[in-house]
């Protein structure tokens, strides 16, 4: 298939070609990346209208089940929903197991839904570039709601928050010590917090947790002048509160649109995108640098054996990188 075939296929909402385009974006081959760049560039003018939602939460909080209920409701309202799962678990070998669709049984069958888990195993950086570009492809293919799911560990939530309009943090009601073990950083990113699994015997706990989180959020300086993140409760099982969250997202969008904050946010995100690409490109160049490539195994071994110290080794590698930096790096 040629570049134009991909572009036409995506714009024609062809499911197979949308999937193939995402594969191209995720590919590690330079020739594929070159093609993907051209495709994304051509699709960019067809995007910008979709609602981009990031959803995070610790493992076990019920993200997938929540997205299943939420997504089904949106589909019922005639929206077209794309779900991208960012960093599934991966094993040592570099292979990975992606089980996200196992918990989105009904949504995965909807004509108006598209679910794509992506392996993160074995790629350095990568996640940012690929997810942003994948969002562009989905938007161009007519999906008007893009949900990016990420596990609330490591750096991924900061990355995802920097590419969406609305960042939803799912929490669980514990037994009194709700705020323990929660990173302050995650709360700062949230446009709303939802206490999930607020059903059955858990309703009372959820209500208490809601008050705790509200107190915690009050202590933070809000990042927006016109939006203070609310704390909601919901249940992906009874569906209580699911619609309320969607209404909150719509209200948030309305406010940000009319105040001009949405445009500002997206401009800032374009800059984030650029920096992320620069960082990823630097890492990529480091590993592809012939001088580094040649000496890396020996230096690694030497540090492992305790012969060379980590500081000296790092300096040496960076020096090698600078040394081999050539004009040819500018080409292409």
């Amino acid at each position, binding site marked *: 298939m040629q570049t134009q075939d991909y572009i036409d296929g995506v714009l024609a909402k062809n*499911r*197979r070609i949308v*999937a*193939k385009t*995402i*594969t191209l974006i*995720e*590919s*590690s*081959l330079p020739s*594929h990346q070159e093609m993907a760049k051209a495709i994304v560039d051509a699709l960019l003018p067809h995007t910008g209208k979709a609602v981009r939602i990031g959803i995070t939460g610790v493992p076990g909080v019920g993200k997938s089940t929540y997205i299943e209920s939420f997504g089904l409701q949106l589909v019922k309202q005639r929206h077209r929903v794309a779900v991208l799962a960012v960093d599934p678990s*991966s*094993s*040592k*070998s*570099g*292979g*990975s*197991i*992606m*089980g996200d*669709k*196992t*918990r*989105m*049984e009904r949504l*995965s*069958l909807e004509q108006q839904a*598209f*679910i*794509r*888990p992506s*392996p993160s*195993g*074995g790629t350095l950086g990568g996640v940012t570039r690929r997810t942003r570009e994948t969002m562009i492809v989905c938007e161009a293919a007519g999906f008007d709601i893009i949900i990016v799911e990420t596990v609330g560990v490591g750096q991924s939530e900061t990355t995802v928050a920097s590419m969406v309009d609305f960042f939803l943090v799912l929490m669980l009601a514990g037994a009194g010590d709700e705020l323990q073990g929660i990173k302050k950083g995650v709360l700062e990113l949230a446009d709303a917090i939802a206490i999930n699994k607020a059903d059955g015997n858990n309703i009372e706990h959820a209500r208490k947790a809601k008050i705790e989180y509200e107190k915690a959020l009050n202590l933070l300086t809000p990042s927006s002048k016109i939006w203070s993140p609310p704390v909601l409760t919901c249940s992906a099982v009874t569906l209580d509160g699911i619609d309320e969250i969607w209404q909150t997202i719509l209200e948030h969008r309305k406010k940000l649109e009319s105040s001009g904050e949405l445009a500002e946010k997206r401009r800032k995100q374009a800059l984030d995108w650029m920096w992320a690409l620069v960082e990823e490109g630097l890492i990529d160049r480091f590993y592809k640098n012939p001088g580094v490539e040649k000496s890396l195994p020996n230096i690694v071994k030497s540090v492992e054996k305790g012969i060379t110290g980590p500081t000296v080794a790092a300096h040496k590698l960076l020096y090698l990188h600078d040394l081999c930096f050539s004009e040819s790096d500018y080409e292409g």
Partner: protein
Amino acid sequence: MLIDQKIEKFVKREGRRPRILVSSMGKKRHNQDTRRLATLFAETGFDVDISPLHQTPRGTARMAIENDVHIICFLSTGNNYKELVMELAGALKAEQAENIRILVGGAIPRSDYDFIHSAGVDQILDSVRIDKEALNRLIDLFG
């Protein structure tokens, strides 16, 4: 050639790992075989998708297309594997995705092998004996 080398070669050529969807297309719960096999595939270096329970052949085909997998591994848990395989192959063809390879695992009597192969299945694995060596042969499907 060792399987690690084959996978490495595959990645260099395709730009990604071989991706496989494991589906039992049955009504039963995921059995021990599904989990064991998914883990084995992942440990070998595959990217593995696991399909939901109660997945139909059509749903399996659709998931294979969205996730853009190279192979579907259908783990048979019942007696209706012939129908399921035919439906799966048909659903893939309807979406112009017949280049996705099908692999069947399970207790399939030898007398049915010809039928299943002719329905579009590339390889049949005796699920009791799926090991790295069997996976090594699987990679050969991609040359």
